[in-house]
């Protein structure tokens, strides 16, 4: 069998349980696809071939014994922001080029416990700071739909890997759109759960009040299967929420009739590419045909979400990245003169340009004399944006709109002006500020490039959001399209 890569995660898990093929066969086939694509896409930082094949052999023994979990023998990849015991974990940075994690992130441990096999660690923007996967110390990731274009970011390696079917699912993280934006630009499904739904333990911190782990998959049904295993309370994460994990898979088939969909008026503005808008409007029309009721809603403070984000996220980043001191782990400069020189040169040489930019922005907005004007002000506006969402969810079940203003852009096109790059996340940041679950699903193409539709729900409504995404995917086939050369 050579077409495993066109099967869904659900089908692969079922095929393994029915012993139609072995995990070793499956893992070997995907590892070969990873190797064959690496020069073209640069989607991986590390490939853990030997360990994966050994784990697959163990999975086959478990399956033969009638044991195993929901994902036993299924290959996946982890974004290189998740700590993996005994495996190099770089976060896309020179700072952690030699860091071998002494423990597993909770997400990694949970997926391992469910039987999933890790094939490797995916490339990403350095410390998840970027919207194009160009800031990685390991070089840019390329978009499988067109290698001259970015895959989006920061989870660009995971997105490119899933889009090119190098793995049937990959973990990812989303601080301002880092799951949804690459999902849109690569034509796949990306789920950012509610803040606190998935443990952040062992997920290298960027902005702790915004970071949330999630997943990239071809379909919403696959995302539901993954989330069911990844979600849940974790005592090791002080912001983990102790609320039961529903069966996201069982909720997929609920009828859509009567679903109240709010169209975000602020998202359909002149910044939105006209062709992108057309695809999104067609998707909304289909939702109407499927029984949803559409109403326009306004979130007047939402346009301020990017300025709020570029105060709050750098502030938290400057604090979180203070731990990289050249003493306990990570990069250390040569021949430090004294302790201050050790700190300054280790950090100056270990961090890339965008990370340094954000650390300095954060340092400035938190410094004496500016804290009230920038940081406290941004936190107050964050409250206003959150209140806008709360008000909207008083009258609608979910909000819909575009995920990004445009399809994928050229590598190098937006690297000179940080503001231009930051505006890529203009439609995604709101959900992070309010801690809301959101998904991006493919809803068509513009000049052979995929376009994403975003669905945002109230806190802990992942089942509803995935259900709405799944209903759309039952009626369309955009999510089954595979880029030329990877089919």
């Amino acid at each position: 069998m050579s077409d495993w890569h066109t099967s869904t995660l659900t089908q692969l898990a079922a095929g393994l349980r029915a012993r139609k093929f072995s995990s070793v066969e499956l893992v070997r086939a995907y590892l070969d696809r990873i190797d064959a694509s690496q020069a073209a896409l640069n989607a991986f930082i590390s490939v853990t071939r030997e360990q994966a094949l050994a784990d697959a052999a163990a999975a086959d023994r478990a399956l033969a014994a009638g044991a195993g979990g929901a994902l036993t023998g299924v290959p996946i990849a982890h974004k290189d922001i998740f700590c993996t015991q005994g495996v190099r974990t770089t976060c896309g940075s020179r700072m952690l080029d030699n860091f071998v994690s002494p423990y597993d992130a909770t997400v990694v441990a949970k997926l391992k416990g469910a039987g999933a096999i890790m094939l490797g660690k995916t490339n990403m923007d350095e410390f998840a700071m970027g919207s194009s996967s160009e800031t990685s110390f390991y070089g840019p990731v390329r978009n499988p739909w067109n290698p001259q274009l970015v895959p989006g970011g920061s989870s660009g390696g995971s997105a490119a890997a899933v889009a090119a079917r190098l793995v049937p699912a990959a973990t990812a993280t989303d601080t301002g759109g880092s799951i949804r934006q690459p999902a849109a630009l690569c034509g796949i499904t990306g789920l950012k759960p509610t803040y606190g739904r998935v443990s952040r333990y062992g997920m290298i911190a960027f902005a702790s009040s915004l970071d949330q782990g999630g997943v990239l998959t071809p379909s919403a049904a696959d995302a539901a299967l993954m989330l069911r295993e990844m979600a849940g309370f974790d005592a090791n994460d002080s912001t983990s929420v102790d609320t039961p994990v529903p069966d996201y898979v069982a909720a997929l088939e609920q009828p859509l009739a009567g679903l109240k969909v709010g169209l975000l008026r602020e998202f359909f503005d002149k910044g939105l590419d006209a062709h992108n808008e057309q695809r999104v409007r067609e998707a909304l029309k289909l939702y109407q045909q499927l029984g949803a009721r559409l109403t326009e809603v306004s979130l007047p403070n939402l346009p301020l979400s990017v300025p709020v984000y570029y105060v709050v996220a750098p502030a938290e980043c400057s604090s979180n990245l203070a731990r990289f001191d050249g003493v306990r782990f990570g990069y250390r400069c040569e021949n430090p003169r004294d302790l201050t020189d050790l700190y300054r040169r280790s950090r100056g040489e270990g961090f890339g340009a965008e990370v340094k930019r954000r650390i300095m922005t954060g340092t400035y907005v938190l410094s004496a004399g500016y804290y009230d004007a920038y940081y406290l002000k941004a936190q107050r506006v964050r409250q206003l944006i959150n209140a806008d969402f709360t008000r909207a969810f008083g009258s609608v079940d979910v909000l819909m709109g575009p995920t990004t203003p445009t399809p994928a852009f050229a590598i190098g096109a937006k690297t000179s002006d940080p503001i231009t790059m930051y505006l890529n996340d203009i439609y995604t940041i709101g959900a992070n500020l309010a801690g809301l679950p959101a998904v991006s699903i493919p809803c068509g193409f513009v000049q052979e490039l995929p376009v994403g539709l975003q669905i945002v729900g109230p806190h802990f409504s992942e089942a509803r959001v995935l259900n709405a995404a799944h209903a759309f995917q039952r009626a369309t086939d955009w999510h089954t399209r595979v880029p030329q050369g990877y089919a």
Partner: protein
Amino acid sequence: MYDFALVFSLRHARREPPMALTREQIASIAALARLDLSSSEIPVYQDSLSRILDFVGALDRAHTTGVAPMSHPLPGLSQRLRPDVVTEQDRHELYQANAPQVAAGLYLVPKVIE
């Protein structure tokens, strides 16, 4: 009222930011952040940090009198406490395997006191 057109218009703003940061300010921020910058990096950050501060200056237009700052996306949740018992094992050898310089179980740094 704010609109995205307003925010997007900043993308095309090729004007110089009104309050450009000086070389000295960038050097001082870098010193606070314990970042060594080369002399060629300083003007790059002068330009981009000035632009970012200009961009986030849009927040001034929001009326926030009486609005409480929001630091946690799930308001109302209280900080969890755990029993005060030892839960961690001593694994310093494993952890120190990642350290740049270690001797006798101690992290080594340049001499601090002459």
